[in-house]
């Protein structure tokens, strides 16, 4: 499903070059519930950005769903992300002027689906993430946990192959974070969508079915647990 081979990424920070990823190789199968763990600055975000096709590697090979994403141009990448990838962000990133329902529907509008189908899929997903009755609220009238639920619904509503979540619980208290992870786990089981989430939090790592440890831009540990 996802194949990374010797992926390297450097950043130029003034005079110095930061080696964010120093040759990462990784294979992820369909339906995995995988956590990328590591301290701050270890390269988690960089790795997720590369898998998420919103950044380019300096070298190495990245294949997602058999697609050689290094070879796609800007517009092809946008279309690829639109169809195949879902994103959940640390800061939720909902559109503040749209209601919960409209935020979820946003992802489907990009796919040019019919009005009916958009309505149906949006409502059923909002129900699944436990936001029934709050569909018409603006983000400002939702708690952090509820906003992240909207974000998860937005990521899942288009039935993507992979959902990428960069520290999805870092802005939430631990109880709420736990609830979000439980929801993600449930969705992973139900939709067999691959979930990759990063964290530096021990509690969050506990949820992972597979834990990939990152340190200074290199994978130091890769273990499956059930």
């Amino acid at each position: 499903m996802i194949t990374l081979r010797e992926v390297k990424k450097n950043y130029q920070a003034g005079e110095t070059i930061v080696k964010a990823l120093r040759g990462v190789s990784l294979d992820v199968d369909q339906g995995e519930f995988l956590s990328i763990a590591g301290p701050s600055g270890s390269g988690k975000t960089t790795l997720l950005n590369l898998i998420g096709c919103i950044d380019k590697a300096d070298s190495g090979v990245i294949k997602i769903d058999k697609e050689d994403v290094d070879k796609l141009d800007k517009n092809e990448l946008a279309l690829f992300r639109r169809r195949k990838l879902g994103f959940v962000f640390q800061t939720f990133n909902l559109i503040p002027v749209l209601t919960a329902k409209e935020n979820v529907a946003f992802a489907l509008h990009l796919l040019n689906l019919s009005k009916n189908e958009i309505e149906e899929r949006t409502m059923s997903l909002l129900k699944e993430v436990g936001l029934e009755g709050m569909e018409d609220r603006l983000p400002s009238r939702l708690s952090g946990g509820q906003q992240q639920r909207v974000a998860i619904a937005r990521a899942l509503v288009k039935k993507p192959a992979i959902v990428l979540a960069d520290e999805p619980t870092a802005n939430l208290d631990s109880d709420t974070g736990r609830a979000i992870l439980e929801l993600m786990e449930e969705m992973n089981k139900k939709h067999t969508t691959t979930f990759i989430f990063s964290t530096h939090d021990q509690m969050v790592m506990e949820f992972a079915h597979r834990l990939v440890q990152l340190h200074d831009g290199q994978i130091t540990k890769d273990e499956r647990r059930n």
Partner: protein
Amino acid sequence: MRFLISLAWKNLSRYRKRTIITASAIAVGIGIYIFFDAWLLGAELDSERNLIWYETSSIRIMDSQYWEEQERLPLDRVVENPEVVIKMVEEMNIPAVPRIRFGGEVIFYKDPYEQDGGVPVQFIAIDPERDDRVFPMKQTLESGKYLKSGKMEIMIGSWFAEDIGAEVGYPLTIVTRTRDGFFQTIDVEIAGIINCPNPMINNGTIFIPMDVANNYLQMEGGVTEMDMSLPLQADVEKTAQHIEERLEEKGINNLVAKTWKDLAQDYLAIAVQKRAGSNIMLLLVFIIAAVGVSNTMLMAIYERVRELGMMRALGMKDSQIRIAFILEAGGIGFIGSVAGTIFGSLIVYLFSTLGIDYSWIFKNMNVGYRLTGVMYTVWNPEVVITAFIVGIVISMLIAYIPTRRALKMQITDCLRNE
């Protein structure tokens, strides 16, 4: 597309304060533009009318040599038998009157005047019996009487009267030359003072009865010009050409028929310059409105860089994002344009009935416009529509620049933006 429009609309209503402030800037810009244009158009039309009614008439027939040398007001380049021509023109249903235009000086002495003095002026001899068929000078009489044939009397403009301290009944001496170039003096009395809306006339033209001038200048019935009046909207060029053709048919080929546009080239040149000048002012107004919009859009876009990053990550194409922001700016432009055209039209309407009194400007300053007193704005629907469309289009164009800059950022940088 529908959802992009709805997104833009929601952003506009959500950030209401910002929308209103920016739209107001556009509205003021457009309102000023519309008012200014109506004001200029009013000034132009008024000015043209005053030029034609009191100064040039619609068409003037002269000797072709006179036309060449008119600067020096030559009395030896005259039309010898004006009545033949006048009759011919009047047969075409165009009122026509003869006039003699000549240069000279008026001399006045202490008592009744404040002090001795002399001023060079232009004289126009008119036939009191019929001059008002073409020139409505009679209606502008402020005090005293209109001219009468055979009387040694003159009529002067009120500003000129004020300048030299003259009143009705005061004597004046005219110093000029006859047709043959001999010096001649004419003692006259001021019969009437006119307040003519054309400042050129009001400032220093003296009217004298035709027969008096004919005698003293030894014109032997010759006149320097014949002036005719056409409706203001008439095609003067075509009529002038027509008149010349008719003259030729009659075997008269030393005369030319010139329109007011030929006669007032100086005025037209100034008018063109003025329009260019006011266009620059209008441009400034637009730049101010444009700066308002660009500032707002800049803020709107930089405030939302992370939102933009999210949208791009979710697979929204650059072109769609561009459209979204351009629609948002276009919405602000639309609101501003609607408010601006209403606001502008209201003040135009107000001043088209009330008028703007600015006699004080033209009395103390010669700005070339043939205007004196109250002036009315003139509604110009073409400009209102243009302003409306330009308001929207410019807003949209302005949004393009900051959007393009934001789209040049890496998606990852957008997402990290605080």
